[in-house]
């Protein structure tokens, strides 16, 4: 089984074709690089894969499964529940004064005990006499709005980044997006959120379960920070971190969710040669943990040094794919990359 398969993915933004019919497959445990000149559509491809801007065409499979959440029986039940809840809610709201009058006001005499039984019976009778205009119409209209809204929400959420992240895909961003006001360890802990189980009430009441989980994940987060070499700064604010370290923190945060697949968007951008050397070692160690790595990079030394296979894009289209040696000697790639080396 492939770790990820991209089938004919295309992305268009208001008529502009950013990515056109790109397909490739990534083997588990591989370091796979996507390269191409600026504007080739590499980041757009990443965004399509991670659900930030869903692909206009094609689809992506992870571990042989469709990445978009399928329509299940549970979804149908949820739509039905939304229909009923909103429908009944609207119908009740529209008639609230009438129902209140029938059940409470007609039955309650000041300083007398309240006859609950007859009040409920009256309420039932009042509901039964609501009729079409007062009862059924608001029920159906409200229900349709409710189901429509639930449907809209569901279809937005079925391919949203959080859903995809939870299926085991983590990523870093080209323009580093850390949570600057949180400490390093907290940044890593955010990445672990999907694995945590303690809920609202155990946090509110500080139940033992919450404490146990907190200790466990905290220790793990510290280990991850050690792994990327940032353990001694664990309690500093992420915003105060020097640039080179920020990349490392982002990788640690991405690894925190124990993803099967990690997407690195230009991890070496702005690094000096020593830092790049360290980064290469880090990426290899990530792979050695069993995580498949896909990276976008301009830094040819890094790409050629660590990639198992390379996929080359230009103007949103695939122009080549193969081992580093094959790409290095591919004339179309050399042509596409003339001048890019000067920039990068």
């Amino acid at each position, binding site marked *: 089984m492939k770790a990820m398969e991209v089938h004919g993915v295309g992305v268009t933004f208001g008529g502009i074709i950013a990515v056109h019919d790109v397909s490739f497959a990534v083997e588990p445990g591989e370091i796979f690089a996507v390269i191409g000149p600026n504007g080739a559509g590499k980041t757009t491809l990443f965004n399509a894969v991670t659900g930030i801007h869903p692909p206009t065409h094609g689809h992506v499979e992870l571990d042989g499964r469709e990445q978009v959440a399928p329509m299940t029986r549970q979804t149908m039940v949820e739509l039905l529940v939304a229909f009923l809840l909103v429908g009944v809610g609207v119908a009740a709201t529209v008639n609230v004064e009438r129902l209140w009058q029938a059940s409470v006001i007609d039955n309650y005499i000041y300083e007398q005990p309240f006859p609950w039984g007859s009040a409920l019976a009256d309420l039932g009778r009042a509901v039964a006499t609501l009729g079409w205009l007062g009862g059924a119409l608001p029920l159906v209209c409200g229900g349709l709005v409710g189901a429509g809204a639930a449907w809209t929400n569901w279809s937005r959420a079925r391919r949203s980044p959080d859903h995809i992240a939870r299926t085991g895909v983590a990523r870093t961003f080209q323009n580093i997006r850390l949570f600057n006001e949180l400490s390093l360890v907290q940044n890593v802990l955010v990445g672990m959120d999907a694995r945590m189980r303690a809920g*609202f009430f155990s946090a509110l009441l500080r139940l033992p379960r919450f404490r146990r989980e907190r200790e466990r994940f905290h220790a793990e987060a510290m280990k991850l920070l050690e792994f990327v070499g940032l353990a001694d700064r664990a309690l500093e604010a992420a915003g105060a971190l020097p640039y080179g370290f920020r990349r490392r923190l982002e990788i640690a945060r991405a690894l925190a969710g124990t993803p099967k697949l990690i997407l690195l968007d230009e991890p070496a951008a702005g690094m000096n040669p020593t830092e790049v050397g360290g980064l290469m070692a880090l990426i290899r160690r990530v792979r050695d943990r069993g995580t498949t790595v896909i990276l976008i990079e301009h830094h040819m030394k890094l790409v050629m040094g660590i990639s198992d296979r390379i996929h080359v894009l230009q103007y949103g289209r695939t122009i080549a794919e193969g081992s580093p040696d094959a790409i290095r000697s591919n004339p179309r790639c050399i042509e596409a990359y003339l001048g890019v080396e000067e920039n990068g």
Partner: protein
Amino acid sequence: MRWRPGPIVTILAIAAVVPLVDLVLPAELALSEAVRTVFLYAILALGLNVMTGYAGMLNLGIAAFMAIGAYAFGILSCEIYPFQLGFWPALALTIPIGALAGFILGAPTLGLRGDYLAIVTLGFGEIVQDILKNLDSITKGMQGINPLPAPSIGGAMWTSNDERSWYYLLLALLTLTVIAARNLERSRLGRAWFSIREDELASRSMGIRVERAKMIAFATGAAIAAFAGGLSASVLSSTGEPNNYDFQVSILALCIIIVGGIGGVAGVLVGSLVMVGLNSIVLAKATAWMAAHGIGSQGNVMLSPNNWKFLIFGLALVIAVRIKPTGILPPKLERGRV
């Protein structure tokens, strides 16, 4: 390391001795009653802080949830309705009712971008007043619901004259709210909220279920605000009228958290002390003093001290954010194990 009291503990401890200070102050200077208002607004602002401070969702209609809490408390406990639950059960029920109201408003709207949500909440704040007025067979419209029960610990029910009892009850409930807010803040949920506030897309890409986290923040904030509403109705023994929960209350709550320092519990406490203190202590006492000494007159609009209150309040806001845009006590980075 030696334990040192943080700002929250310090503030609450000082608040606990205010009634004792009152014993030595002359009667007209007594502070505890005004400080009670500070407590109520502090609870309300803590609720708003969960939504706006933690999760970054601007809410301009928090007063609506306060109104819902107050009216729910009124209907559940007043003797002119059949339910007559008594103080504690009714107050406890305001929390789930507030959360439900938060859910009903939040479910369709939480996907909205920043200020779109702000306008929806603002509108909600307006129409809740309208609805409370219009459904007058249920809510008694503009009459308000009264009298409402107060707690009775050992013996007769308190009245609003039992100042010290009320004072310490409110302080205790405020402390509970503070603990709840702190517990949530320093949990997985709080972290998720902060990450959403900082960068929604990045936290989404890390697998945070943004809608769900926002929903919880919204419902929690609404529940706390409703709790504040029920409590304030009990203190006054009346829900007042729907207009008492208008936009201006929401604005005051917002000013409290921003002037105090958004996102931190200590900031909210200081903010409510400063903003409500300015209103119900400093301005009130100052105008009373001026009136007693014959300063100002009623004949000319500009010579009457009361007519300057809006201006002073507004200037205080502008100057406060100008001097400290991050608030008086901005939250510090959580350094401990979180």
